[in-house]
């Protein structure tokens, strides 16, 4: 990364912002998919049951806490790895 000049750095920053928007959307749609898949199994009606609603709420909360924790550990490991390799 240190080999990018300011102009390239700027372009790369714009690209990262664009990717972050996509990442957020992917997170959102993955969350919907996961909680639907795990929580919704009754197709005798077209409304969520209260049991399914509770499950979806917990599933979303737990998944976000899960991602957050994995993100923190990921950063730590990445930093440790950078050091170990002498970078």
């Amino acid at each position, binding site marked *: 990364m240190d080999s990018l000049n300011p102009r390239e750095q700027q372009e790369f920053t714009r690209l990262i912002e664009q990717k972050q928007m996509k990442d957020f959307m992917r997170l*959102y*749609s993955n969350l919907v998919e996961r909680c*639907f898949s795990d929580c919704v199994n009754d197709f005798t009606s077209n*409304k*969520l049951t209260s049991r399914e609603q509770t499950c979806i709420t917990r599933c979303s909360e737990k998944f976000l806490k899960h991602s957050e924790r994995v*993100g923190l550990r990921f950063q730590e490991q990445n930093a440790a790895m950078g050091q170990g390799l002498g970078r």
Partner: protein
Amino acid sequence: MSFLGFGGGGQSQVSSQQKVQAAEAELDLVTDMFNKLVDNCHKKCISSSYSEGDLNKNESNCLDRCVAKYFETNIKVGENMQQIGQNFQAAGRL
């Protein structure tokens, strides 16, 4: 196609490129949701025995309800994410 409110007002000083990119991101989101809907409702409703090529009555009913429930789940998850709010911002970042 605007169900999450992207491409709406409030962005007065964005460039053409950014606007097209936002519209593209929204389109990608809707397409992605549709593809996930197709996959997930197939898993929930379609038996893999394939004793016929038509959708039978049970499968058709199941699909209609599956789509409705997927949308409701989508809304519910959005509400939950707003509540959890700031925690989420940390989680969404690398």
